[in-house]
């Protein structure tokens, strides 16, 4: 691992990609669905602003075409007034159309067609001028009038929403039928013009007429075939009505150059046109009614897809964040617990065991409570528990072992102390009984050896955790304590205890203090040349009683001094492997037990002086000092 990262970071990295993908998918899906629904909105707007007025305009224009044809043929004033009337209608419709038409409702691809529709719609004047002058030839007039409906059909077809294929098919069928109606009006117009002029079609006109008729029949067949039955019925009725059949007969007669009544052509085509218009309007309305639910469905679908998708996205993000947080919280808690265990709890238990305290393992090493429900985290917590338990048990076992070894050593040392004590008592009696200096000298030497044996036995007791144990009933002068301490040292004749102020300590601590001073004096005597003196001085000070044990040796290096002072201040666990200056370890133990301060310093004479401060609390109070053992 190149760099240390938190679990939280890694989980976040792990989850970012799926979440981003999910959000992306949702955005895409919503855009598509809403886009579809928006198409309905634009298509609806197109129908409202452009489609319906445009259709009205086209129908009016087709009517003008028919009337123009009639007028061209008859040049009759009645026909002219009808034509002029229709022209105002057409102009009205055109104005409405142009005012409402909105280019924005038209899809990008259909905009050129739209532009053309608008330009053609604005360009009626030249056609009308030609009609008024009687110059228009029928074919060209028909083409000119047919241009706008043609373009408009293209536009309508292009705008039709393609969401629903069956709906598209219906709309397309209507456009086909609309184109058929255009062909029909152009036929009617051409026929009326020729009949009014009482002349047959020119070959050119006949060909155009025939083509229109074929187109109309083909488109009607195509359109009706594609229509849904309920939409087709009204149109079918009109297109197979007697008028329609009659129109077709007259159409055939015209093509065949047979005589056709001008009046009945006009009447039939007028009736058929208006009936057709009505039927088509009705069917278109029905189609729009049918398509409305589809539009609503599209909106509902878009809304539902967007909303459900959004909920799913929010849900998954929330769930993810929660899971990730939970996981990192669990792991964090586990880490804290493990650190607490490693740095606080275990060291505390071990320290208390070392001090010899009784430790309740269950209370001191309670199981780690994992914060969450993740199985692996629980497993790790359980593993830590067992590590903790094992460690504490090992520490307890070690403490018990140390305690039992200490107990055994203490026991043996006490027995030997007891025997030595009896021996000393016997020596006392023998010394009192003898009058012979030579014998006394021998007894003295024996006494000295025995006293030192007792000291070693007591040292062993102290090291194994006990107390020197000899108790005096009366307080003892500190000077006597110091002299007794000196007596326990091998080279006691080199040691001088100078007279000191009267101070006494209780009998209960005398043995421990004698031992403490004996170790310091021994240290001073051992580490100084045999011919030099070791001095012991004591005096009352503000905080208690100070004793100085000074040798005239070579002294110690500063770091050595510091090391010894540290051992005196914080006596280490007894380590049988480290017997270097064992006596100072004993001294440190005893000093700690009685809150006595011991410090080694460099003496002005070059040797070492041990400064001991007995706290005032350890001294016998003034009034209690009357009964001091002498």
């Amino acid at each position: 691992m190149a760099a240390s990262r938190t679990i939280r970071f890694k989980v976040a990295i792990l989850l970012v990609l799926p979440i981003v993908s999910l959000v992306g998918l949702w955005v895409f899906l919503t855009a598509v669905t809403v886009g579809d629904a928006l198409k309905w909105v634009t298509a609806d707007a197109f129908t409202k602003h452009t489609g319906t007025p445009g259709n009205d305009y086209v129908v009016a224009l087709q009517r003008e075409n028919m009337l123009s044809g009639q007028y061209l043929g008859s040049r009759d004033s009645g026909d002219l007034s009808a034509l002029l009337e229709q022209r105002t209608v057409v102009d009205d419709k055109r104005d409405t159309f142009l005012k409402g038409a909105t280019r924005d409702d038209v899809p990008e691809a259909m905009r050129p067609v739209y532009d053309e529709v608008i330009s053609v719609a604005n360009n009626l004047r030249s056609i009308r001028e030609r009609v008024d002058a009687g110059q228009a030839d029928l074919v060209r007039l028909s083409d000119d009038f047919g241009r706008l409906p043609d373009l408009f059909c293209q536009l309508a077809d292009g705008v039709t929403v393609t969401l629903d294929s069956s709906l598209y098919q219906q709309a397309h069928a209507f456009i086909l039928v609309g184109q058929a109606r255009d062909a029909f009006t152009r036929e009617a117009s051409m026929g009326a013009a020729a009949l009014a002029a009482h002349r047959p079609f020119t070959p050119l006109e006949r060909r155009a007429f025939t083509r229109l008729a074929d187109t109309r029949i083909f488109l009607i067949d195509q359109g009706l075939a594609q229509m849904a039955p309920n939409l087709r019925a009204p149109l079918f009725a009109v297109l197979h009505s007697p008028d329609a059949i009659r129109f077709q007969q007259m159409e055939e007669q015209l093509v065949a150059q047979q005589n056709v009544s001008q009046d009945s052509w006009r009447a039939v085509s007028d009736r058929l046109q208006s009936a057709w218009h009505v039927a088509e309007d009705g069917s278109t309305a029905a189609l729009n009614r049918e398509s409305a639910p589809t539009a609503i469905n599209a909106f509902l679908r878009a809304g539902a897809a967007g909303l459900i998708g959004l909920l799913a996205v929010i849900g998954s993000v929330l769930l993810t964040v929660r899971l990730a947080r939970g996981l990192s919280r669990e792991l964090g808690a586990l880490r804290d617990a493990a650190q607490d265990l490693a740095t606080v709890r275990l060291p505390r238990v071990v320290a208390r065991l070392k001090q010899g305290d009784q430790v309740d393992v269950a209370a001191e090493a309670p199981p780690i409570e994992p914060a969450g429900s993740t199985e692996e985290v629980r497993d790790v917590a359980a593993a830590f528990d067992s590590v903790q338990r094992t460690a504490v048990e090992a520490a307890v076992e070690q403490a018990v072992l140390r305690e039992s070894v200490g107990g055994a050593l203490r026991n043996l040392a006490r027995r030997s102390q007891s025997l030595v004590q009896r021996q000393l008592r016997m020596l006392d009696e023998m010394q009192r009984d003898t009058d012979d200096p030579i014998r006394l000298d021998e007894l003295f030497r024996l006494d000295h050896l025995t006293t030192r044996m007792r000291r070693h036995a007591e040292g062993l007791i102290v090291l194994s955790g006990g107390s020197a144990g000899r108790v005096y009933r009366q307080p003892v002068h500190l000077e006597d304590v110091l002299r007794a301490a000196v007596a326990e040292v091998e080279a006691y004749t080199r040691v001088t205890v100078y007279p000191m102020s009267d101070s006494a300590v209780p009998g209960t601590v005398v043995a421990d203090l004698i031992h403490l001073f004996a170790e310091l004096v021994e240290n001073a005597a051992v580490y100084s040349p045999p011919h030099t003196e070791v001095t012991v001085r004591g005096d009352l000070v503000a905080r208690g009683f100070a004793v100085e044990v000074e040798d005239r040796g070579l002294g110690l290096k500063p770091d050595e001094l510091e090391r010894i002072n540290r051992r005196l201040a914080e006596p280490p666990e007894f380590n049988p492997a480290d017997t270097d200056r064992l006596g100072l370890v004993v001294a440190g133990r005893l000093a700690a037990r009685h809150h006595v301060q011991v410090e080694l310093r460099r003496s002005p004479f070059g040797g070492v002086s041990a400064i001991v401060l007995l706290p005032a609390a350890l001294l016998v109070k003034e009034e209690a000092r009357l009964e001091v053992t002498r």
Partner: protein
Amino acid sequence: MTEDEEDEEPVVRSYALTRGRVAGEIDLTAIVAATGIEPSHRVNLSLEHRRLLALAGVARPLADVASDSNLPIGVVRVLISDLVEHQMIEIRPSMRGVTEGLLREVINGLRAL
């Protein structure tokens, strides 16, 4: 190790009181008496020296002094020798050798006065 019922052992061992010395042939019946000379400052007198000096304030036999000091006689001899050396105590010859005849003569002589 409390042994309350028995006599308490001395805090300072006897050999320490004499610094291991055993010299001194002083008769138990010899009379010891303080001379009244103050010790010089250079002299390091122990507690026991001073106690013996006090006990010898009135001239009395060594045996009495030793008994009162509760110290072994060997120790007392060494310490008294120390004090003699510093001229703080003088030892007078004992009354050993005084016979009954001599005593009678002394009595008779006194009566004749």
